[in-house]
Structure formats: C-alpha cells, structure tokens
C-alpha cells in the first residue's frame, strides 16, 4: 500500500511498528531456541545438568514481556485512534457544496450488494462501481449492505470496514492526492467475490461538483423516462418518444408481439405490460415499432448488448456464458423466454441483484431481448 490519506499514513506506520515488534519476538525466540540447540550439540554425551528455576526468573521474564505488551498496546491505541479520527477539510478541499457551507465531512452512502458497490451522493446522484470524491476533503462513507456482508476496502485511502445488512458502518478519510485508487472487497461473499472491485477517483472539488450535478441531471432524465413508461399513458409515451427520439424499447415489444402472433409465447406481452388498460396503447406502439423492426431488427439487440456489457457481464461474462461468478445463461430456464428473463432482471433472486431501480423498464426489456435472442438463441 502507498498511503494517500492521513489515516492510512497512520495505519502504515502502525503496520511497520507491528512488523518490528513481530521481528523482535520471532528473532528472540529463535535465537534462544537455536542457542540452546547449539549448546545441546556441545554437551552431547555428558549427563544433564539442569538449571534450577527460581520464582524470580519467571517474574522477571513475565514482567519484561508485560512491559513490551503494554508499550505495543499503547502504541496501538494511539495510532488506531489517529487513523479513525475525522480529518479536517483543508482550504484546498470542498468547503461548500451547492452553495451551502459544509460543516462536517461530506457524507456519501455506499451500499454493497452481490457483487458491486453503489454510491449515493448528497444531492441524490448515484454511481456504480466508481466512487468520485473531491480531494483534500473530509469524507464520511456510510456503509450498508442489501444482502450479505461485504468489506469496503481501498487500502491507499481509508481503513477497510464491513458493510453488514441492518447496520451502518462509518469510514472517515481524506484523500490528499488526485487520481484513481483501486479497491477490492475482502470478505467472502459468494460466487463473484473475487471480481467485486471498486475504484475511487479523487478529483478537484470543482470537478466533483460538476460531476455530481451532471450525474444528477442524467439521472433525472432517466427517471422521468422510467416514470412515464410506468404510468403507461399514451400521451406521455408519445411525448417521451419525441424526447428520446424513439429508441429501441418499442422494438423489443414489437418483436414480442410478433412472436405472440405466431403463437409461440402467448403470455410474454401480458407479463411485460404493467397494466391491462395499457394494452391498447402498446398495441398501437407495436404497430409503429413493428415497421421499424421490419426495417432492421439489429438496433434493438445492439441496445440490449450495451446494457448487458455495462451491467450483466460483470458476473455472467462478456458473452453471457458465465465465468465471473454468474451462471451460464444458456443453461438457465428463465433466460429462454422474454417474460422470464425480464422478471429475473427486474426482481433478481438466486444471488442476482434486482435491477428494478437501476435500469429503466425499457432497458430491462432490451437486455432481456438480447439475452433471449442473441445469447440463448445463439444469434
């Protein structure tokens, strides 16, 4: 580790103190042991002449050991409390956020789930995998978990800490250097535990604010889109189509409708639609989309592929044939049909996280289509 924060500097010092204490212990024991053995060789053949023990010897040795232990204990407390104390935000750091002056550390929520980290910023923006923080600023990371125990660990920046479901664990640190820092979860958490990594990008305070606001704007757009789909009102849908320049979601639906017409998978469209009353609207769409699909089915799979690469390949592998902890999708019964795949992606289960809040319904149906047609269907 190369410490880049005041806390990890303390930790590193303590590790070296521990190392030298360990070295002293190890060398002392083995010098004594091999010294005795060497003398053993010299005394071969003669009869034993034992040294008799006196009580004083034990007290002296024990007292010496106790002194050593007390020194280590005190050093341990000093450096540990230094490492866990909240550092001060320096003048070069983020002193005010969105016009409001920051009094305490900047609080960011980190949520562990199998097998990724989600970071929620104070203004509602969030990111996956990558945490962006301002340099020279005291950060408080509130660690939570939605499923099993994970350990958030970025050795260069902060002490590691467990995210335990039902409890909040706090890590405070201050990054003193800009750049990317690497971290890896270090509590066994199941299949894709090994590739459960995270990066921390330390940027200037100005860049941080830009980033968070940008992220929030994107999110808003995405959320609005998702909400509109959810309400399933024709008007809004039409508006949405204009706004988003008629993306690929409809094509997915269109294809399903087409399939349903062929009588292969009659239940698929019902599962997919949120409300029965929306059927009419969907069908109208389907007709429109159908024309587009007829013009070329490829864009749909491409969109799904993108979503897959960003969200699913972490576990299921780049080609969907497993490898990073997730199962081979061609062997999963649910991945054989659109409805099953969508349900699995939306609700998760069997070790897979739910993507309902993460991906819009449109994206979910895209990716489901990609899985069903390209991966399982073997296109």
């Amino acid at each position, binding site marked *: 580790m190369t410490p880049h924060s005041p806390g990890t500097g303390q930790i590193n010092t303590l590790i070296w103190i521990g190392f030298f204490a360990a070295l002293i212990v190890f060398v002392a024991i083995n010098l004594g042991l091999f010294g005795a053995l060497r003398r*053993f060789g010299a005394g071969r053949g003669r009869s034993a002449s034992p*040294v008799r023990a006196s009580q004083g010897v034990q007290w002296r040795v024990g007292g010496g050991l106790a002194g050593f232990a007390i020194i280590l204990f005190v050093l341990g407390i000093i450096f540990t409390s230094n490492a866990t104390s909240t550092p001060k935000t320096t003048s070069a750091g983020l002193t005010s956020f969105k016009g409001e002056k920051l009094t305490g550390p900047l609080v960011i929520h980190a949520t562990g789930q199998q097998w990724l980290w989600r970071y929620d910023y104070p203004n509602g923006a969030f990111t996956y995998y990558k945490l962006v923080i301002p340099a020279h600023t005291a950060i408080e990371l509130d660690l939570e978990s939605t499923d099993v125990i994970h350990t958030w660990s970025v050795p260069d920046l902060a002490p590691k800490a467990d995210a335990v479901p039902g409890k909040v664990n706090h890590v405070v640190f201050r990054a003193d250097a800009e750049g990317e820092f690497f971290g890896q979860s*270090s509590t066994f958490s199941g299949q894709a535990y090994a590739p459960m990594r995270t990066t921390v990008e330390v940027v200037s305070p100005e860049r941080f604010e830009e980033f968070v606001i940008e992220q929030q704007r994107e999110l808003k757009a995405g959320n609005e889109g998702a909400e509109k789909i959810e309400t399933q009102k024709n008007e809004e849908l039409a508006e949405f189509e204009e706004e988003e320049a008629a993306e690929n979601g409809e094509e997915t639906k269109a294809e399903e409708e087409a399939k349903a017409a062929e009588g292969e998978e009659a239940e698929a469209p019902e599962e997919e639609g949120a409300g029965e009353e929306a059927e009419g609207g969907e069908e109208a769409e389907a007709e429109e989309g159908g024309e587009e699909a007829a013009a070329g089915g490829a864009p749909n799979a491409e969109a799904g592929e993108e979503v897959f690469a960003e969200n699913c390949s972490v576990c299921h592998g780049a080609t969907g044939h497993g490898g990073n902890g997730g199962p081979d999708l061609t062997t999963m019964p649910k991945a054989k049909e659109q409805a099953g795949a969508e349900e699995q992606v939306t609700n998760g289960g069997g070790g897979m996280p739910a993507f309902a809040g993460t991906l819009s319904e449109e994206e979910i149906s895209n990716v489901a289509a990609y899985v069903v047609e390209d991966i399982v269907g073997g296109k």
Partner: protein
Amino acid sequence: MSTIEKPRPEVAVDGFPKRQSGFGRMITSADHKDIAKILMVGSGGFLFIAALEFFLMRLQLAIPENTFMEPVMFNRILSLYGATSIFFFALPLIMGIFLYVAPLQVGARGTALPRLSQIGGALWVAGAIVLYSGFLWSPSQAGVNPLPPLSELAFLNENGVDAWLTACGFATLGFVLIAIDLSSTLRVDRAPGMAWRRAPIFAWAAYVGSWLMLFIGPILLAAFTMLMIDRNYDGVFFADGAGGAPLLWQHFTWLFYSGAYMLVLIFAFGAIAEIFSTFSGNPIFDRKALMGSFVAVAVIGTLAYMQNMYTAPIGIGWKYFAMLMSMALIVPVGLIFFNLISTLKDGALRMRAPVLFSVGALVMISLGLAAELQQSLVGAAFYLKGTTDSTAATHFALIGGAVFGGFAALHYWFPKMTGRTMGEQLGRLSFWTLSLGTLVTFVPMALAGWEEGQVADAYKFFNHTGVNFYNVLSSIGMLILLIGVILILTNAVASIKGGARAAHDPWKGSTLEWFALSPPPVHNFDVRPDVRSDRPLDDIRAAIAKRAKQTEERAARESQPVA
C-alpha cells in the same frame, strides 16, 4: 501385534472371549485407545485430503485470472477445506492423542465415562461421512466460516450448507463428549499420590484443553443449531430486518475458532514440553509457570476472539478490548517459550525425529504468532485483515501446532501405540520437505497480502496487480508441502507394520505411560504405581535398580562360603 495379556478373573468365569477381527473390535470398543486410534487414523487421512484441497486451490491461483476452475467449484473446495482442516484434521488429531496418551500418563486403567468417548468417536465418523457424501451432491459454497447472511437460505438454497453444518456439528458434539470423558478421567482417575503438581504436563494440557472444548464447543453448536433453524424452519436468528443479527454468528463462531486455535497451541506446547524434557534429560524448567501459562493462554486467547471482527461495525472499545487481550497473550506465550527453551538448555542431547519436529513446530508457531501480533493491532488490521497475509499467519501457527506439533507427538508416542518406532530417515526427510513446503507456500502469500493487499478466499487474482510471482511461488511451495504430507503419512502407515520394534520405554521417559506395555493392554496397567514425585518412572527405575542390586548382594553374600 501380539500383546501379552495377563490372565484375568473374567476369563475363567465366562470362558475365553470370542475372537474378533482387529477392525471389528476397534469399531465396537469403548476403550479410549481404540477410539483415539480411529480419530488419529481418520485425521491422518483428512490431512492428506485437506492438503490436496489446498493444492487444488493453489493450482487455480498459480497464474492470474486462471480458468482452471469454475468459481463455484473453487468456493466448494474452499468450504470443504475449511471444514476438513479444522474439524476433521486438527481437532480430531489433538483430541485423539489427548485421549490416547493422557489417561495412560496419569496411570488410569481406562476412562471414567468410556461410552461418552465411544459416542463421540462415532459422531465424528458420522460427521466425516456426511461432509464427504455431501461432496457427491451439492457441497456448501459458503466459505471457510459460513457467515450469514451469505449462508442463509435466501442466498444459498442448496442443501450443501446444511450438510456442512451437520457434519461439523456432529464432529464438534463428538469432541465435547470426548472432552467430558477426558476431563472427568483426569480429575478422578489419577494414580494414587499423583497430585496436579506431579501430573505430567501433557496430561495437564489435555485437562485444560478439555475444559476449553467444554466451553467453546457448545457455543459453536448453538450457533450451528440457530443457523439450521434459520435455514429449515424460517428462523430469523441471523437474518437482518426481522430482529436477527448477522454479527451474532461472528461472535459465536470466532469465539470457537479462537478457542480451537488456542487448543492447538496448548496441545503442541504440552507435547513439546514432554519431548524436550525426555530427550534432554532435564526436568521441565518451571512446571508451575508452564501449567499456569496454559490456563492463561486458554482464557486470554479465547477472549481475544474479537480481533477477527476489527472491521465489523462494533464499538471501538470492543476492538481495544480484543487488542488488550491479544497483547496480554504475549506474557503467557512468552513464558511458555522461555520455559521450553530453558528445559532444552544444557541437556544431554539425543536428536531424534520427535525433537526435530518439536523444534520445527516452535519455529513455525513463533513465526505465525509474531505475524498475528502485527495483525492484532487494530489499526494494522484495518489494512491486513482479509488479505492473504492473515491467511498465511493463521496457517503458520496452525500448521506449526497441528502438523509439526502433532507429528512430533506421534513420533514420540508411536512406539507406545504400536510397539514400533516410526522410520527415522523418512521422518527426517519428511520434516525437511514439510518445512520447506510451509515456508515457500506461506511466506510469499504473506508478502502478497501485505505489499499488494491480495484478498483471501478469492477464486482468482488479477494480472498487473504485482502478485503474479508470489502466487506462482506459493503454488510451487504447496506442491512441496503436499509431497511432505504424503511422505510423512507413508512413514506412519508403513511403520505400523514395518517399523523397527521398540521396547516399552524406548526414549527413557519419566512419565507413567512408559510403564505400560507397548501397545498397552485393554486395562492399561496391571499395577497402578504409587506416585511420589513428578517423575514417577525415574523412581520406579531407581527402585528396580536398588532391588536388583540388593538381590545381587544377597546372592553374592549367600554364595560366599562361610569362613
């Protein structure tokens, strides 16, 4: 092996007992020696299996991003290894040697509650069968210590976790029953005159170890039961969100694992004290200090269990408490090392395999405990915990205690158990192979953890993280270690039938087990000697020599012509 059985009254009353095959007799016997043999032979087999499993994992981790093994397969082997190494190798070997030797050492004619030990041994065998029949359907993938919520039904709905818990639970219950038997025997069945201050140090280690097992075993069993209820009857002990607490499991199990760790150390120190005393001809340097230190290690070391939870959301005060206990452990462990080395000093050396293995055990244990010392500083653990550095430290101490210490004890008591000695040449060869293997496996592993923070238990590591060389070295080391394990097991198995015949007291020991025949008859001793000192066999030897001299003198006197 034929033993000379003294005629006993029962024979005359009931006729000659029906001849049974050795195996049939052994599995139905309630004799502590037969139960112990089952445990020891079984744990020898599991040592090989555990080493093989570790070797397979190292094979997967030899090169970065290896695809030799599917992650699921790796996690299954990891979980199996965790159970095998602790519950089916280290603990049964220790309990087995305790159960065989300690009653003999105190001059008991059997154990006080032999049926308990018999049930214990049977439970352990049942556990072993459950664990490895689980291998045939769907083994657990919950890791070395199956931490909930991962081990809850919601995340692992295969029955492998249940099988893992059942197997380890059976084994632990077995150990607890054996511990009850052993502690009662050592409490009430010591030879006349053998006050604790005169009892052999290894018997004291067995006594302390049994009590330790009586405290920690039921706690683990409680945790296992609760998790089983969670999994099978919709319990919420460890599930969050319904009033359950995932951390509760960690308190229970780390208490057990820390206690078991201390049990391994106490066992090794006890056996090494006997061996050093015998082979140097010196009495144990300060028996009282050693006996007290064993108790202190058992209590303080177990109380330090929260050093496994330094990164968990528990109050910082608890972490400091664990650190205090870990630091306090320096005193008794230091005193033990001091007294062991002082026992060795200025003695008359006989450098045989047991001494070699004892020295190896002390070196490995000191290396492991020194590394643990570094990690028990809370701040240092904020980086080192969960890395391969901590894996390496634990393995140094436990391989030192259970493999080196265990085989030191086996080499030492092998003549008593079989009437033959273990091969000296092969013993030395296996010692050096094991030592080399252990160092080459775990030193690079420790460095990878410390320098680059490589995480423990992961099925792969990434290229360009600076750990490639360490990992390939560690895998080569594991191959050497595996060969060492095969050598030492071959030596043990071959020596049962083909070793050099040994007399009843081949090492000139000073404790009572050497007074019995080799192997001892069912009732151990025809005569229970009065014990007048802490070296009863020396007294017996002196008495015999005196008697012989008197007889000689009398014969000489009587044969002299009256002048």
